[in-house]
């Protein structure tokens, strides 16, 4: 599942500037994730600092946790575009860890389910994020089935 070539690679996340409460029944974010697809590259620059505050953030913070004897990422926290897919993240992690393309990598949300490769991290963040970030576990073997 290829993505728009203009999309930036994930960047290390800036220090957290305000959390997002669990719950979401406020629905305050009013369809930000559901609106128009991002048309082109976002501004390059230092991670996080050019982001508009609050709901209109194009990037979300992802925390990557290794499972079992899978190599640990030196940088664990990344600012990732909402429209980046799980497959895109898998490819990025494999490159970063210098794994072979043929090696498998499984990603889990809530240590309970493996999202589809074409699922967008923005949607996962909306539904399963907490404390302003989406925690994802990654593993070279199947961990939670």
């Amino acid at each position, binding site marked *: *599942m*290829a993505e728009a070539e203009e999309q930036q690679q994930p960047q290390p996340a800036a220090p957290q500037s305000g959390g997002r409460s669990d*719950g*979401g*029944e406020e*629905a305050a974010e009013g*369809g930000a*994730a*559901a609106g128009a*697809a991002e048309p082109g590259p976002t501004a390059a620059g230092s991670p996080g600092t050019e982001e508009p505050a609050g709901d209109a953030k194009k990037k979300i913070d992802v925390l990557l946790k290794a499972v079992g004897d899978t190599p640990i990422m030196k940088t664990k926290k990344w600012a990732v575009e909402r429209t980046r897919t799980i497959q895109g993240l898998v490819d990025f992690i494999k490159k970063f860890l210098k794994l072979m393309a043929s090696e498998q990598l499984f990603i889990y*949300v*809530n240590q*309970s*389910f*493996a*999202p*589809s*490769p*074409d*699922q*967008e991290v923005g*949607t996962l963040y*909306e*539904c*399963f994020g907490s404390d302003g970030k989406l925690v994802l576990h990654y593993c070279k073997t199947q961990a939670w*089935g």
Partner: protein
Amino acid sequence: MTDDKDVLRDVWFGRIPTCFTLYQDEITEREAEPYYLLLPRISYLTLVTDKVKKHFQKVMRQEEVSEIWFEYEGTPLKWHYPIGLLFDLHASNTALPWSITVHFKNFPEKDLLHCHSKDVIEAHFMACIKEADALKHKSQVINEMQKKDHKQLWMGLQNDKFEQFWAINRKLMEYPPEDNGFRYIPFRIYQATTERPFIQKLFRPIASGGQLHTLGDLLKDVCPSAVTPEEMWLSNLRIDLRWRAEDSSDDSWN
């Protein structure tokens, strides 16, 4: 739940009459006849088309055959979407039977996931069930089940066994009496009019005042452009009932 059994059965046994035709550029040893099949709306293309594959492979040489994939009017069909959803999104306004084109070459890597075995379909199906339960019950119900219960869900779907499936699924549709519903409703809204994959957000079944949220409330909240305030029409909007959230009252629809 027993009152809804008729609805549950209607959803389960929904079928779409389909005509499969081999893509004209595929190389065959003789003429390939079209193949007709009633497709279950709740299942997945690669799970129910073994006979289609066999039928067309009979007229082709082995070396011409690699992974099967399906297309409708130039659009590759995502096997990991339920069949009913694919039909509603792409072909609901056209005459039946639904005409699907079958390919065995030039797999569109950018558009489709691979499906090398039934295990892949099972894994995808179970991941959907688990994601839904993460929203409904913080995964408590699905995690308390044994492996054999998970298997029964899958076998029920694979073998079209309503009772076998619902013997387990009903536990996923229950909630403690002190709660008034699930934690969040698992839903996805697909629209034919946009490039966006789908809308999925957190949405509670009960409003802060204690009243039940209706389907209309959900749509107004997450997809306001699709509804007009007075009439609540479904326009260019298809809701995936696959997730089968418990039946909040639909009395907002006239």
